[in-house]
């Protein structure tokens, strides 16, 4: 069975490491990008689109909201599940992200359990992956 793939997009290397650790535990293959532009460049070179992207909001070069908007406008990337992972916790920001096409929204700080729960709700946690 082909493993699922996740893209972790955050300008903080520390946060990328945390997210990568979680998705790897769930048997995803993970790739990292430091901002939205780098993520789009990586996606352009990929033959297989990742199943999941975990996206920070505030990043240099291209922020998470712009990234979500661009992904949603690209039919090749339409199957990718987009989860914002950010300190932006105002209701208005959550609404903006979901309206732009994000599927879920996780506010930092988050526990590993809370993140796994969100991914499970999206049907992205394989059976037995978190045992």
């Amino acid at each position: 069975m082909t493993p699922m793939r996740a893209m972790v997009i955050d300008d903080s290397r520390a946060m990328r490491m945390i997210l990568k650790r979680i998705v790897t535990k769930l048997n995803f293959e993970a790739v990292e990008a430091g901002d939205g532009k780098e993520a789009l460049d990586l996606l352009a070179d990929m033959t297989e689109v990742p199943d999941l992207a975990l996206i920070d909001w505030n990043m240099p070069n291209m922020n998470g909201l712009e990234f979500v908007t661009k992904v949603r406008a690209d039919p090749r990337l339409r199957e990718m599940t987009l989860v914002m992972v950010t300190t932006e916790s105002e209701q208005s920001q959550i609404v903006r992200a979901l309206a732009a096409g994000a599927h879920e929204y996780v506010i930092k700080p988050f526990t590993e359990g809370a993140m796994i729960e969100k991914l499970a709700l999206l049907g992205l946690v394989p059976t037995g992956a978190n045992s």
Partner: protein
Amino acid sequence: MSVEVEVDESDLAEMVEQVWESYLDPEGVSPLIPTYDENQASEVHSSVSITGSWSGHVVYASSTAAARRAAAAFLAMELEEVSEEDISDTLGELANIVGGNVKAMLPPGAQLSLPQVVLAPESTARYPNAARISGVYGLWEGEPVSISMWQISSETKEDGA
């Protein structure tokens, strides 16, 4: 124009508790023990600036040992594996997380800067026209850690504008 902020010590303490629960002490065995000493020493610090509906800074400061321990917990590493870059990244993210949550409690229109990390004591930091308005000060496994908020005086800003 900057408004009076309504984020107080108990709000900061709640954010700190969430950070500890999420990243620094998920097992719940090493909480931050309050000292209420706003003059406690630090060796490293990180900060984010907030502008817009409120202007000021959110500062995370600690000893180097506490910063190393934070990086080890954050990045799931052994203490001896932690590099200066790991410490710097972790301090930046901690300031970003606390600052982002402070911003969420402010009136709409606030903007958060990218974090700045300085591997030097908080006492070396210069925040022009800013005064500390609240903070959480404590010991984490015997090492000092603090999270504080500094507000830029709107009167001074307007006078200088």
